[in-house]
């Protein structure tokens, strides 16, 4: 009776899909053992492909979110935005999209149509064409209604510096985020109706490529650019500190968080820094460009609540230190395992 399940880490756990440390372990421990293309090993949101006369940017993402519809979006809109954003933060103009649908036997046709029409509307708005697609149907119970995979191709914005030629992240640089964090996770959580109440928070689900393009074209020196999705802002800042071998210092009071999201975090014991976003952008820019960049971002609908949340330091490289609201200091860690499965 005593030893029942002796499966330590030889099975996939939900935490492996959380975008946190377990996901990173899975990638480094398994996938990188077998897939070794240099573009993949660079570990970016999208791969840069050099072809004569141009640099293409290529990315892929899968969407298994539950429920399919939530305040501010649905799986179709998300499948476009998620892939567009991976291209956008790689400095690319999104051009072409593929979609693969995995459908469950018995899935309602009207439901599928509303997902697909919303996908089409979002793609048109983003100026990206869906040029190839595939459909598979599995037996009832083998997937949850609709899963979608999208891949995207874009071309690097001419004014954007390629990796390897980018401006160096240095001590004193500012860290910017374009608005409130944690909205997506809270919107999805409430749509699941697990909580039995509603706070009216909508997902931040949006395509960021226009905002990025406007900043690139204005000549700002964007030294580092990412979108914090699963794993949240805290996990992303840790990636910044590790990749750039620098210290990251952030001020809790400077990070934009809606009061209702903060309240829900209190209630549920979540750390808002680990909550998923689907329309957020984190930038590192020289200190002297900060004010002007913030001014331009705030003029854009997706940057209205942009804020400088901290700076790059030369202290404790690889670590993220936060000045707390009451003036204490603590370390911010990446998300470790599962907090909310199937959030995107």
């Amino acid at each position, binding site marked *: 009776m*005593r030893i*029942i*399940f002796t499966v330590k880490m030889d099975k996939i756990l939900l*935490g492996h899909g959380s975008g946190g440390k377990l996901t990173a372990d899975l990638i480094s421990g398994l996938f990188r053992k077998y897939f070794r293309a240099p573009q993949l090993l660079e570990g970016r949101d999208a791969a840069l492909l050099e072809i004569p006369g141009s640099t293409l940017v290529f990315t892929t993402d899968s969407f298994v979110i539950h429920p399919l519809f939530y305040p501010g979006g649905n799986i179709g809109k998300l499948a476009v935005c998620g892939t567009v954003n991976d291209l956008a933060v790689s400095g690319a103009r999104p051009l072409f999209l593929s979609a693969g649908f995995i459908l469950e036997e018995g899935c309602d046709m009207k439901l599928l149509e509303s997902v697909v029409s919303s996908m089409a509307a979002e793609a048109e708005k983003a100026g990206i064409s869906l040029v190839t697609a595939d459909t598979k149907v599995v037996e009832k119970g083998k997937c949850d209604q609709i899963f979608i995979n999208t891949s995207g191709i874009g071309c690097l914005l001419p004014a954007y510096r390629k990796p390897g030629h980018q401006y160096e992240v240095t001590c004193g640089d500012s860290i910017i985020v374009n608005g409130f964090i944690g909205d997506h996770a809270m919107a999805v959580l409430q749509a699941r109706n697990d909580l039995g109440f509603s706070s009216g928070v909508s997902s931040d689900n949006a395509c960021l490529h226009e905002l990025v393009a406007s900043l690139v074209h204005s000549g700002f020196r964007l030294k580092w650019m990412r979108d914090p999705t699963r794993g949240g802002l805290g996990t992303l800042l840790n990636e910044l500190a590790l990749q750039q071998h620098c210290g990251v210092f952030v001020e809790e009071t400077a990070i934009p968080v809606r009061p209702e999201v903060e309240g829900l975090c209190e209630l549920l014991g979540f750390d808002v820094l680990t909550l998923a976003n689907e329309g957020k952008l984190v930038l590192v820019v020289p200190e002297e460009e900060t004010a002007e960049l913030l001014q331009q971002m705030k003029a854009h609908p997706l940057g209205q609540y942009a804020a400088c949340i901290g700076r790059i330091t030369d202290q404790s490289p690889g670590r993220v230190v*936060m000045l707390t609201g*009451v*003036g204490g200091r*603590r370390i911010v860690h990446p998300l470790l*395992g599962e907090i909310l499965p199937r959030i995107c």
Partner: protein
Amino acid sequence: MKSLEAFRDKELVQLLIEEIGRIAPPSVNLMEVCGGHTMAIQKAGLPSLLPPGIRLLSGPGCPVCVTSYDFIDQALALIRKEKVTITTYGDLIRVPGSGGNLAEARALGADIRVVYSLLEAIEMARKEPQKEIVFLGIGFETTAPATAAGLDLAVKEKLRNFSVFSAHKVMIPAMDALLEQGSPIHGYICPGHVSAITGSEVYRHLPSRFGACCVISGFEAVDILESILMLVKQYVSHEPVVEIQYRRVVRPEGNLKARELMDKYFELKDDWWRGLGVIPYSGLKIRPEYAAWNAEEKFGMQAVENKEPPGCICGLVLKGVKTPADCPLFANICQPSDPVGACMVSSEGACHAHYLYREDG
């Protein structure tokens, strides 16, 4: 959350820190018993603000941290029975038993569901009469009344496919045991929500018998610092007493209704605590008259011997004798993503909180 802003006021925090610094003795050990306090202290970064002589120790008040391997093993055995669905609060699903945890069992297809409230489990029992819904009851006086309320509903509705596997414990016997076992504690930051149920009288013997200072504290930075200031004042004046800082929630008499409900469905039993061993009258067992809702009786579960994992010093950490950083396993073999000891599992565990929020190393 506007109402809480005053309790996070930076200037007030600064004033309290200065005042603590002014009267602080060269060395004093204060234990925050409750995991919620451990978490709040680390999250606000309070250790970086306090004078070095004030040592904050994390106590045994994180429910999953003190729950035995045996409990997890028995739950894993239970889930193998036909028709059984286990419902539990989220923290418990990664707690290691001697051979795996509930998350791994779930990955293998076991029907284990995380709930935010016991009422969800009751609802499942109503909707799925063909299933046996077992709720893993865990926690102290804060969650035990909710479990009792759930039992009350199930008994009244004659909901026969619902039962509770109780690992509920009570806090005060553990606080006594620590002092009896010689832990170097000068004062307790007493648990806020437990005290809301028990009231303040239950701590009365701690100052008189052990000379321990006691302050019942709230959970915001200002609450905790004010409590520390009150404790330090008691300590330097050699006048240990029981005081309530958390007056907006805690009354001396506690919550009588919740206590009545607990008394109706639970009786005290000797219980095993991880790191502390068997503590007399420290566990809550469902009374024999409600055996039909007691999973242990219903499924004839067998208790097995409790053991500590080799190398783990969770016990000494819980007693305040060692800090997480003293443990050779800390942050290398034992990490939040793959915990060895229980203190690393729950976000309220001393090792987990220390791992997440420490600024050094």
